């Protein structure tokens, strides 16, 4: 279980990114996930250029054909991964593809 204190401390980074736009620099579709992500696989991860810096993120609500290098994405809030009933639900930034150009 991740520490609730760590989650609380990291929330400010989510706030800085939320709603911002970026472009996909590189992507991969993950078929074999790490523990906690089993229910989401397969899913895409991407390196995203936010203009001032690059970040790593998971893509959500994506259309397969729209995932390409150069596609525009927007930072949204989502549940990060599966947790047990007695854990704090971790929310964080994921990226939604908004345009394939």
């Amino acid at each position, binding site marked *: 279980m991740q520490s609730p204190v760590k989650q609380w401390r990291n929330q400010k980074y989510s706030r800085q990114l939320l709603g911002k736009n970026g472009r996909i620099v590189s992507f*991969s579709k*993950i*078929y074999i996930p*790490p523990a*906690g992500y*089993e229910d989401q696989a397969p899913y895409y*991860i991407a*390196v995203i250029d936010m203009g001032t810096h690059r970040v*790593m993120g*998971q893509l959500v609500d994506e259309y397969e054909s729209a995932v390409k290098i150069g596609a525009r994405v927007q930072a949204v809030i989502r549940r990060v991964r599966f947790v047990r009933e007695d854990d704090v639900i971790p929310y964080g930034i994921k990226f939604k593809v908004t345009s394939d150009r």
Partner: protein
Amino acid sequence: MTVSILGVATTQFGELWDTSPRALVKGVVDEALIDSRLQLKNIDALYVGNMLSGILGGQENLGAFFASALGLVCPAFKVEGACASGGLAFYNGALGVRSGEFTNVLVLGVEKMTDHKPEEVALGLMGAGSDEERLAGATFPGLYALMAQAHMREFKTTEEEMSAVAVKNHYHASLNGKAHFRNPITLKQALTSPMIASPLKLFDCSPVSDGAAAVVISSDASRVKKPVVIKGAGVASDSLGLAQRNTLTSLQAAVDAAQKAYKQAQVAPCDIDVAEVHDCFTIAEIMAMEDLGFLAKGEAGQAIFAGKTTLGKSQKLVVNTSGGLKACGHPVGATGVKQIAEVVTQLRGKSEKKQVAGAKIGLTHNVGGTGAVAVVHIFARE
């Protein structure tokens, strides 16, 4: 001060369910000591390379753990740098000798991975990445897949060329009795294997393995004729997270570590006869060949595909005679030490079926994380 390698040994690599880490280590240390003609009482310090004993097995304090298991009473250290832990343990052990503090040092690399289920191992390995990468649900195959995707786009590297790395390394491993996978594979088998993290398929990935390797080093080589010595060493680090790098198609830490090692050894990439490079994924060997200066940027895929680094086909440099991480196996803490054991055995001319004829200068390249740390060593026989 010259540091000589007096003894080397490697255990069988593979799924060793009936063997404990202690048993693995005892066996391999006995073998390395016999090779070095030293006894346990002659060892002045122990350096252990390991990454996952804490997160998977709940056991830390590995310096004391293995010293007591071996019956050694001396300073003992654990060195951790993800998949470069073994190479870093060796680097630090050699520093201990060069400083004059220790005469004889035992360097050990060990990892026990197959006791745990794949999702747990994948999560444990992600301890080498950044928080941002863990939150994104990234895995190590996924991170290297991001590099592969970029390399394919920038240099027209193909999936066939990546598969050719696996075919070569399985062939080399078929000549290595201690390798995890001793079965040769075909290009078609590699290309049609299940997708793990696109574009990387099962045969693009090194396996989860158990294994250990040990090396005895010393400033006193008076009892050995023509020992293999360390000619150059370099370590460098980079951003922990992959996204924070300037490029996805080269590991700057590997470039920097190699330059330091070449400069210290006063040799050039074209002088190297045999190299063990960190092929945790097939794209990693392609990038390693370019980062180490063996081939120009963007040309490694084609060269490997053409067999230019394969035993029996190469004109000069042969790469990953052990089978590499891909086919010899990748018990992460053991890998860096095993690479050194392999190159030293080659330079001694004792590699039997996989011997590179006339090998005089060898190189090892060990990478941690997605290139957050790299360590390069160059060896020659005096």
